[in-house]
């Protein structure tokens, strides 16, 4: 069994490509993937910064071909060509794939290193895969290890200090446009987790007037009540934009809602006051054409990447510590994963010894005239003897299998107990 990961993220592909590949509902795509012969288990992570699939396979090369066609045909826009795939996607195998999953969950691969949202998004992706039956015992174990690694890194390092969310980076940028955020008006478009985080960050900066506009008015109202903001529908956007100083948008939809015409209309009443648009939606909610407007400062998720990089530079020492933790956890998982190689041999050996025990027990009992109670006693005795004799060698086989050299132990065990002969015999019987 081998791990393979294919994906694209904020470093490998521009936003225009990532937004074409965004997956709203991963269940059908995962269903198709695990239904194929090449893939045994799969988890799909799709966020605004990345689309990644990690799979368990028996044959790496055929699984890689399957994932390439999966990215071209089953995800997002089918116009992604072979050349695009080469340019924008990365492929990680086995140890590299394990490490990547651990780094993603720990926010070390995030645009804003240390940001807290990715862990929730990875958990959601894993839960979805479990619920639709795409994830199995191996990926379960990998993701549990990834979540534990993320927790350990957040506890043991200061990686999460500083502006660790896109929302907070955006708020920092707002302070470069506005001297003081108190007295300024914020308009939040959408009502998801990112918007909630932004609202918290903006409140901390003293911003006291906040409007939430959303497609579903109920969700906007719910958020507005919790944060003492006002709730609106998207039809009120022109009026709301006229008053807003900071606009933070993260709402679903394939077309931009902040168009050039809408912004021009809104700016008419502002008398040259600047407006800061932070667009963290994927696909983008604000048309890039609004950049021509003098008073508009528009930053999308990719524009925030450079700021995030600068933040990460300041925490370089913590990054080194976090990477060391990832290496440690990766080693532990690799050990467990390698030990799985011993499972067929151990299972086979147990079955063989058990069949010998059962045969000999039957033969012995046939020669003795025992009552039921005595029979049970003898059976328990043989079972106990077998378990005690096998315990030490099987434990040794398991632990040795975690190392590359451990394969020799497995081969010797199979030879000593004639397990390969059994398999050959089974195969001849089958024929």
């Amino acid at each position, binding site marked *: 069994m081998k791990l393979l990961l294919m994906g694209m993220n904020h470093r490998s592909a521009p936003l225009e490509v990532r937004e074409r590949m965004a997956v709203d509902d991963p269940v059908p795509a995962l269903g198709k993937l695990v239904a194929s012969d090449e893939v045994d288990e799969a988890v799909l992570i799709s966020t605004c910064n990345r689309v990644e699939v990690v799979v368990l396979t028996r044959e790496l090369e055929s699984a890689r071909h399957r994932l390439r066609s999966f990215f071209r045909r089953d995800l997002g826009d089918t116009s992604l060509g072979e050349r695009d795939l080469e340019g924008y996607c990365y492929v990680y195998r086995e140890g590299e794939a394990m490490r990547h999953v651990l780094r993603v969950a720990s926010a070390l691969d995030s645009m804003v290193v240390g940001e807290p949202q990715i862990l929730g998004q990875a958990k959601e992706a894993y839960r979805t895969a479990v619920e639709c039956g795409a994830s199995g015992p191996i990926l379960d174990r990998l993701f549990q290890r990834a979540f534990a690694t993320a927790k350990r890194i957040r506890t043991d390092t200061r990686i999460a200090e500083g502006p660790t969310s896109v929302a907070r980076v955006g708020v920092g*940028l707002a*302070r*470069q*446009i*506005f*001297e*003081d955020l108190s007295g300024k008006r914020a308009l939040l478009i959408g009502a998801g987790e990112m918007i909630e985080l932004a609202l918290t960050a903006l409140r901390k900066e003293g911003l006291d007037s906040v409007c939430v506009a959303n497609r579903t008015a109920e969700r906007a109202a719910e958020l507005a009540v919790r944060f003492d903001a006002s709730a609106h529908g998207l039809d009120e956007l022109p009026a709301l934009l006229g008053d807003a100083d900071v606009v933070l948008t993260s709402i679903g939809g394939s077309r931009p809602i902040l168009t050039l015409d809408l912004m021009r209309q809104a700016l008419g009443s502002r*008398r*040259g006051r*600047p407006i800061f648009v932070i667009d963290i939606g994927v696909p983008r909610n604000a048309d890039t054409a609004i*950049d021509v407007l*003098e*008073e508009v*400062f528009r*930053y999308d998720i990719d*524009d925030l990447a*450079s*700021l995030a990089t*600068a933040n990460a*530079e300041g925490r370089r020492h913590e990054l080194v510590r976090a990477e060391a933790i990832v290496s440690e956890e990766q080693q532990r998982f690799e050990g467990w994963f390698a030990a799985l190689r011993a499972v067929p041999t151990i299972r086979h050996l147990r079955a063989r010894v058990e069949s010998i025990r059962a045969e000999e027990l039957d033969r012995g009992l046939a020669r003795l005239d025992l009552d039921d109670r005595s029979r049970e006693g003898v059976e328990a005795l043989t079972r106990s003897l077998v378990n005690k004799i096998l315990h030490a060698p099987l434990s040794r086989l398991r632990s040795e299998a975690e190392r590359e050299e451990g394969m020799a132990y497995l081969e010797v065990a199979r030879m000593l107990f004639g397990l390969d002969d059994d398999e050959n015999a089974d195969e001849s019987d089958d024929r």
Partner: protein
Amino acid sequence: MDALLLQLTAVVYLAAGILAGAAWVLSHAWLSRAAVVALGVGALLHGLMFSLLHTAESPPPLTDGPTAVSFMAWVGTVAFLALLWRFRLVGLVALVAPLSFIGVFYAALSPAAISSAEVGTGGLPHAHVLLASAGLALLGIAGMAGAAFLAEYRRLKRKRHLVGAPPWPSLEALDRVSALALALGFPLLTLGVVTGALWVRTLHGAPWTGSAHEAWCLLAWIVYAVLVVLRFGLGQGARRSAQSALAGFAFAGFAVIGVELLL
């Protein structure tokens, strides 16, 4: 004593400039704060020098170019330090300190002031230089804030990050500083022009002799009058105002200093 204080002031302003430059190169915000402290010490020494001049038995009228430039540097420095109480302008010390140094260094190197016999007596020459220099210093602050605004605007529009740099003032702060400096500087410049005309009348019997200095200064005043109307009367936007403030100060600088040197 005055010369010594002026030289000492130049050294302290230079130290402030070096600290501010180091803050950019080494990416340490505390160096910027240290530069502000040095600038404050320089402004104190500079102010002490001017107050000592006024305690002299026959106070000089400060009408010579180098002294006027030095006075402009002092007013600009003090105005900047005062604005720091209200706005996050620490990053601007990297611009203010070198300009203050240049103003004082130029005065320290220049020959002694023109004698009072050449400029007449009474308070008018003194009032003209103090008011016009203070006005020009404030308009200089407006122009510098305008230049900083345009640089910051360009950076934010191009989405470039100032990696490790000390905190740069916000666009809003720069716009408000530019507006405030224009609002204070223009009346002072106006008073400077009026007292200048009165001074010329006491010397020549008429407020206007048609000299190049008078013509260019009047033109500069008209330019600023237009800028004030555009900004406060017609609601000119922040970016256009920044461009105007910068262009206005370049013109005024040429009218007051350039014309004297070149024409």
